[in-house]
Each structure stands twice: as C-alpha cells, then as structure tokens.
C-alpha cells in the first residue's frame, strides 16, 4: 500500500500541532463581536485539554481491556481450550439489552409520557385523542412483540459449532397471514382516520362562526377581529404601509369597524374560524392544546375551524398551574426569530368575551386615518381608491 508510509505517528502529531496553533480561527471571517477578547484563553484551553485527556484516558482503558481480553484468549487457546465465545457473550448482551430496553421504554413512557399535553381543549381534539390512544395501543403491542422476537431469537439461536440452522426458505401460509393482518389493521386505522380528517378539516363558513384573522410575519403574529358587522374587511398586500400593517382594503366597507388585538381571545363553546395569512415567508399557526395546526402561506389564505371547550381558568385548575396560558407558536421554520414567535390564546366565557371585545382598538387607527386622508388631498386620478373611501364615509 503506497499510502502506508504517508501516515506515521510523527507526521500526524505535527499536523495536529499545526492545527492547534494555526487553526484557531477556522471559520472566523471577521473578528467576533463583543467581549470575546476578554475571555481567558488559557482557562478555555485547559478546559478543553481536560476533556481531551479524559477521552485519552478512556481510550487507554479500552485498549488495556482489549489487550487483557486478547491475552486471556490466547492463553486459553495455548492451553488447548476454547477462547472467549463471543457468540455467547453477544447473545447474552442481546438478552440483557431487551430486558433493560423494555424496562427503559416503560420508564420513559410512564415518566416522560406523562408530560404530554393535557386533554384536548377543543371539540374536534377529542376524536384525535381517541385515535391517538387506539394507534398507541396497537403499535405498542407490535413494538413489544417484534423487539422481543428480534433480540429473543438472537439470544436463543446464538451460534454454536454443534448445531446447524434450520433450512426454511419460505412458508406461503404464514407469509399470507402476516401480509393480511397488517393490511386489515391498517385499513381500519385508515378508515377511522380518513373520516376524522374530513370532519376536522371542514372549515367552510357557517352562520354564527366568529372569523378571526391571524397573520404571521417575521417574527410576530397580528390579530384582527371583525367589528359589529361580524365580517372582516378584505386584504390587498399592495396597500401595506407602516400604519396599515396588514394591507386592509378600505374599499371594502366591512373594513371600517375591524379591530386589532394583542391577544387571541375566544369565547368558549363557540365556533371559531381562523383566517390564516402570511406576509413574508411560510409560518405555521400551531396551537397544540387545541390539536390545531395550519400553515400560513403567503398568497394562499388558509382556514381552520375549531370549537374551544375548556376555558383558560378551567385549564389552570386541570393542570394545577396558576399561570397556565394557551399559546400559539410558529411551527414552520421562518428565520432566526422562529423559536420565539408566540401569542397568548385565552379562552373565556361568552360574557367576558363581550366585555373584552368592546375594549379593543379599531384597526383604523388615527395614524391610518391621517394617512388615508393625506392621500385624499392628492390629485384625484392617482388615488381614486381613497376618493371612493371618502364618499363611502
């Protein structure tokens, strides 16, 4: 092998030393900002050296154990006995693994599994939770049986020179059985899931739905409520300005009484229809407590209809957490602030909702009025839209 002499310990060592000396700013294009310079470099390298040493000690230990095993193996062989039976050792390892693994899975399921979401706070969420439970039970049964078979067979049939394996190329009956059984189980799950999905995703406008506009942009959510007329004004992204953040079109008379809010407050047991928009990149409205998720796509308004069933106050009792709030997160990668794009969602009683909504500011703020009015004084041919707006007023 021609390469062999290229690699020797001295060269490797000197390369490593060169890397340590010169490679310290491997990816730094510009000096790091801030007080990085004040950091004690010496302490930093001692810290790293400590871990490297720790690793080397571990590696030496492994090497020593390896050598001891080798010596033991060879002496056994010299005495005419058999060496270490690695088949046996690995078989036993498999057995230990499956016992410990099943216990570990059980522990994880009970301890970490208990940290999963509380019961669904929306009407459709119940059917999703039921389906989740069914699927979990079915898959756990399969999981336990197949893993036990896998490692159990590995342990029981660990190799020996005395035995020969059982020649079994195929068995059509059993193959048919284990094709048909999963097919039937999956069919049941599919049918169950298909109808639930169709029901949950039906977001068509019905009488009495409260429409709420949720708009995502980097990195916040804007919320708009319809006013007294119960209808949201239409949007046109070209009209977006600093005051008219959402690009509400005031040619539409439903726009004038729209309200903007800081919190997504919804009345309990009422059908809420979220109108989901995005301004810049894809975001995702994710409200896990309500089993609700829908992407916000620029240029493609999406909808999700749900009925909240548990008020925030009641959920605080259920979870035993006095500060509990429902939250809306962004769940589609949208940039550097993706991880902190939250909005509080509060479910309240009908009376509280009425009270709250009357206190919300109109979307048509003073500044926006001024902006539109200023536009009004421009030559008529340029801003006919605002003219008509004035007429409507």
């Amino acid at each position: 092998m021609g390469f062999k002499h290229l690699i020797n310990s001295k060269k490797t060592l000197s390369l490593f030393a060169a890397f340590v000396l010169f490679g310290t700013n491997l990816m730094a294009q510009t000096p790091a900002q801030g007080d990085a310079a004040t950091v004690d470099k010496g302490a930093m390298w001692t810290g790293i050296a400590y871990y490297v040493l720790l690793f080397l000690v571990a590696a030496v230990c492994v090497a020593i154990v390896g050598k001891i095993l080798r010596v033991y193996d060879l002496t056994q062989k010299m005495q005419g006995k058999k060496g270490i039976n690695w088949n046996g050792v690995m078989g036993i390892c498999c057995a230990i693994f499956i016992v410990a693994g099943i216990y570990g899975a059980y522990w994880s399921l009970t301890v970490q599994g208990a940290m999963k979401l509380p019961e669904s706070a929306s009407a459709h969420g119940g059917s999703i939770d039921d389906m989740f439970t069914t699927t979990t039970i079915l898959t756990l049964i399969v999981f336990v049986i197949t893993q036990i078979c896998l490692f159990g067979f590995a342990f029981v049939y660990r190799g020996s020179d005395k035995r020969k394996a059982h020649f079994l190329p195929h068995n059509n009956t059993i193959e048919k059985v284990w094709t048909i059984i999963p097919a039937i189980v999956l069919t049941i799950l599919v049918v169950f899931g298909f109808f639930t999905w169709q029901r949950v995703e039906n977001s068509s406008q019905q009488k009495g739905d409260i429409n709420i506009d949720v708009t995502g942009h980097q990195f916040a959510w804007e919320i708009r409520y319809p006013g007294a007329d119960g209808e949201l004004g239409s949007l046109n992204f070209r009209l977006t300005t600093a005051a008219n953040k959402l690009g509400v079109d005031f040619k539409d008379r439903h726009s004038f009484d729209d309200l903007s809010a800081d919190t997504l407050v919804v009345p309990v047991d009422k059908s809420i229809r979220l109108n989901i928009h995005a301004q810049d990149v894809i975001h995702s409205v994710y409200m896990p407590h309500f089993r609700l998720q829908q992407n916000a796509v620029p240029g493609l308004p999406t909808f999700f209809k749900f009925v909240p069933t548990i008020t925030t106050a009641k959920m605080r009792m259920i979870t035993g957490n006095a500060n509990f709030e429902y939250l809306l997160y962004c769940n589609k990668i949208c940039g550097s602030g993706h991880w902190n794009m939250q909005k509080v969602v509060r479910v309240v009683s009908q009376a509280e909702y009425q009270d709250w909504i009357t206190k919300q500011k109109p979307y048509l703020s003073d500044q926006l009025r001024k902006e539109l009015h200023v536009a009004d004084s421009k030559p008529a041919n340029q801003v006919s839209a605002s003219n008509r707006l004035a007429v409507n007023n």
Partner: protein
Amino acid sequence: MSTLAVHDHGVVHHEESHEHHHKATFLNTYVFSQDHKYIAKQFLVTGIIMAFIAMSLSILFRIQLAYPEKSFPFLTTLLGHFAPNGRISADFYMSLVTIHGTIMVFFVLTAGLSGTFANLLIPLQIGARDMASPFVNMLSYWFFLMASIVMLSSFFVQSGPASGGWTIYPPLSALPKSMPGSGMGMTLWLVSMVMFIASQLMGGINYISTVLNMRTKGMDLWKMPLTVWALFLTAVLGVLSFPVLVAGVVLLIFDRSAGTSFYLSDIVLNGSVQPYEGGSPILFQHLFWFLGHPEVYIVIMPAMGLSSEVLSVNSRKPIFGYHAMVYSLIGISVLSFIVWGHHMFVTGMNPFLGGVFMITTLIIAVPSAVKTFNWLATLWRGNIRFTPAMLFAIGMVSFFISGGLTGIFLGNAALDINLHDTYFVVAHFHLVMGSAAIFGMLAGVYHWFPKMFRRMMDERLGYLHFWLTFIGAYLVFFPMHFMGLEGVPRRYYAFTEFESMKHWLTVNVFITWSAIMAGIAQLAFAYNFIHSIFWGKKTVQNPWNSNTLEWTAPIEHHHGNWIGEIPTVYRWPYDYSKPGHDEDFIPQHIPFSQTMSSNLPHDFEDNPGGLAEHTKWTDAQKANEAVK
C-alpha cells in the same frame, strides 16, 4: 441478455487488451480510477468524512439545546462570528440544522451508501468485470466530491451557510433578505445540489444498465442477491425522482436571480411590498417531496438489502421469503411515488388530497411490515454468528421497527395535525431513516471490508462500537417522541422563552450527553477502519462462508475482477444449512450436479432435465437403502 454480456467481455481477449492499453499510473490507479472497486472506496471514504462532519454539526447544536444560556468560549474560537460570546447565534443554529440534514440525507446516506455499495457489489455480485460505463462512473464520483466541497465551502461565506432547513421551502429560501443564510449560502447549496444530482443520475443509469445487461451466465433476475435487487430498485427511484428536484431547484434559482414568481406571491418583507405575484410556495413543496419521499426509500432500501444479506449469511439460513422480499421492495418502490403529500397535510393543500395521500401512505406500511416479519423469521432457528456486521443488521431491524411504527401516527393525517413538525417527527425519521440506514451502511462496511481492503476489521472494537452507538441512538431519540407529544416544535433555537418547554431542559441535557457518547463511539470505528486498512489481519478468500459471487473473486484486486472466466451461476444465493450437504453453505457457482445429496425437487422448478436427473438419483438412493 446475460449471455450477451459474457461475450462482450470475451475472456481471453479482454485480458490481453487490458494489459496492452492501460498503463497503470499513480493518477489512474489512485485518483481518477475507473475501477468500480476503487470508486466504491472513494465514495465510502468521502461519505465517512462527510458523516463525521455532519455529526460534529449535530453535536454543536445539541450543545446549544442543552445549555442555551451558557457561554462556551471555545465555540467563538472555533466558529468566529457565528458564535459570538461563546454562544451559537440563532442564525447559525439554523445553518447547523440545515447542513446537518442535507449532508446526512444526501451526501452520507444517498451517495455514501448507494455510491459505495452499488459500485462495489453490483459488478461483483452479478459477475461483471466492471460497470457498464466505467468512465461515467468515475465522473459520478468526481461530481459528488465537487458537490461536497461546494456544500462545505458555504461555511466560509460571511453570511453563513444555507439555513432554511434541509427542505429549503421558499419564500424563505427564495428571498435573500429574509435571513442571512438565504444569501450566498443558499446559492452554494443550490449549486452543490445540482452537481450532486448530476452525480446521482450518472451513477444511477450505470447501476441500472449494469444490472440489466451485464449479469454473468446463469444469473437470472431471480438468482440475484437481495443487495443487488435493493440497489437496482434504488437506482431506478433515483433516476425517476432526482430530475424533478432539479426542476424545482432551477425554478428556485430563477426566482432568486431572474425575478420570476414561480413560488412567490403577495409578499411584504420587512414592511416593503415585493413585486411578486401569482406564484405558489406549495408548488415547490410538491416538487421537493416528489423527490423527497422516494429519497427516504433511496436511503433505506440499500440498507434493507445489505441487512438482508448480512442477516442471512450470519444466521446461516436462507433469507425467509426471498420472493416476498423482492416483491415488497418493488411494492415500496412503486408506492413511494404516490405518497409524497403526507409531508404536506397541514400546508394548505386541499384536505381531500390529504385524505388520499393518507390512504396510500398507510398502504406502504404493509410491504414494510412483511419485510420486518421476514427478517425475524430469518433469525428464527438460525445458527447466529455475531459478527459486528450481524449486530448492526439486527440493530437496523430494531430501529426500523421502532421508527416505522411511529410512521403510522404521522401517516394518519388527523394525528399529523398535532404532530407535524414537532420532535415526534424528528424522533421518527432519525430512527427509521437515519439510524436504520446508517446501521445498514455500517453492517455493509464491516461485512464487505475484507472485500474492499483485503484485511479484516477488529471484531471486539466493532462490538464496542455497536453497543455504544445502538444504545446511544435510542437514548437520544426515544425521549424525543414525548417532547413531540407535548407539542415542542422542531428547529427551535432554545426552549427558554416558553414556560411549558422549560421542563424539557433536563431531558435535553441528557440527550446531548447521549449524543456525545454515541459520537465518541464513532471514533472507535474511525480508528478501527483506518487501522485495519493498513494493519488489519489479512483476509481469507471467503471469510464469512458466504454464497455470493464476490467471494469467488481473487483477494488481490484486478481491474476486471476475475482472472480468467467469470464463474457461471447455477443456484440462488441463499443455500445456507441445506440439509444433506456437509457444509452449511453452497456458493452460487456450484452446480447442482456436485450437490446431489442436498438437492430438492423445488430446485428444479423450471428445469425438467434437472428434475429427471434428481428423481433418478433419489430413486437410486432409495434402491440402495432397500438393498441394505
């Protein structure tokens, strides 16, 4: 077909011309080699290096997740302005996640896995002297290497590497101003990917034509080992689906540079109205996942093939249900083209379409289940020899089960509403596609190392490597399911701002340390690999007593694989522990006439002459018995 191939490589003639025309120089032997065995090694070594890089990236972002508020000055030293004040920045965190995913999925588990084993095993296992086009095969590697270098070069760009996630959904990836990584880094990502796909297509076309045209005498399709079946179908998937990604990527390049609006519409970025109109971000998702879903089978099918072979050889038993295994591979291949929509249940795609994709998705679970049961049946009553390769194959099956079962949750559109893009998904695909595929690949490396490097790897280090990695992977990914069930979204830089996510911090610390342990375990592999290449024990002709043809080729490598005639194939590759035979394996090139005592009537299904001979022989045996 196959006889044609044998004539093409006219035996004596080939050897003579070989000596004449090729002069072995350093350059054409060690660098621009056209020998499939050497190209396989190039793919493997590049793949392993990329895997180590991608793994280090994952450790970096795991540190951020475990210690979101702690400062590590060495990170600033290492990463410069990407990690100011000893903390990885939010932008660079996204880059780490993105490049980790991209490298692992494409560069390690697609090119590193298929590239290595299709190159090594297809010619050797079907009995061909090289690929159909060795030159294009060489190009395939060099395009892959260029793609790798371009991808890594994005770390040296001021604004950082691409950071829109490995799925690079526009508009985030299309608008350079939407995040730093969508600038130069994204351009390099796209350029790299186009080169990568060119490499995949050149490789794939070669693998397909080699399998179809160059099989040795007697090697009909139903005598091919499952590895070759899996690699062949993988290549078919790649050739059919990768061009669609090129289309998607080219349109994205237009949107970025030429002002088109294929994927963009109604955009107001940072308060300024953009001129794009009429495009659809969903279009990109369709194009991406039309490749993206077959891609996960491109990743897992070679691992299935390799594991099937390793499980059978080391159980000393025929693979159970060979035909079912092949048909399930074909079933998975076909179905993989009609399930892509399950990545898009909540993206705003028509809900009815979501329902349809849910049905096709859950159907694909059936062939996967069949494969799992057949592997279990292969182990049953075997005589299992625990080589490191065998352990990794068993680990692959274990991961495939664990990760596959959670697929039933995610494939169900109604359940996906709450699980989409959470840690549940991360756990799911890291087990079923990440860990399972990498274990299949490692099984392949340990098993075929003697064929590639003519030396053996150290078994005990292999055992250590296996157990640390296997346990480590479970410790890392199992708890993530429960984070997902609590609605913790993936790709979050820190959980500190959410009161409800804070109690996962201890779990994150645990996961990070498990990941570091599993990462360090890979050093055992790296040491074993490098050390064994140069100083490992020399191998014997057929170290695993295996049936397939590659072990009949001489240990010393020749460009042309076999000296003299290519062996003819007479039987399927899984005659292990056949009753009546004195050894527990009968290689494929041994004719039935030499194994009269172990032949079964079943062996002569389409060979009446052979059946007549067999009946005559058994009758004679019976007569002898009667005389005694």
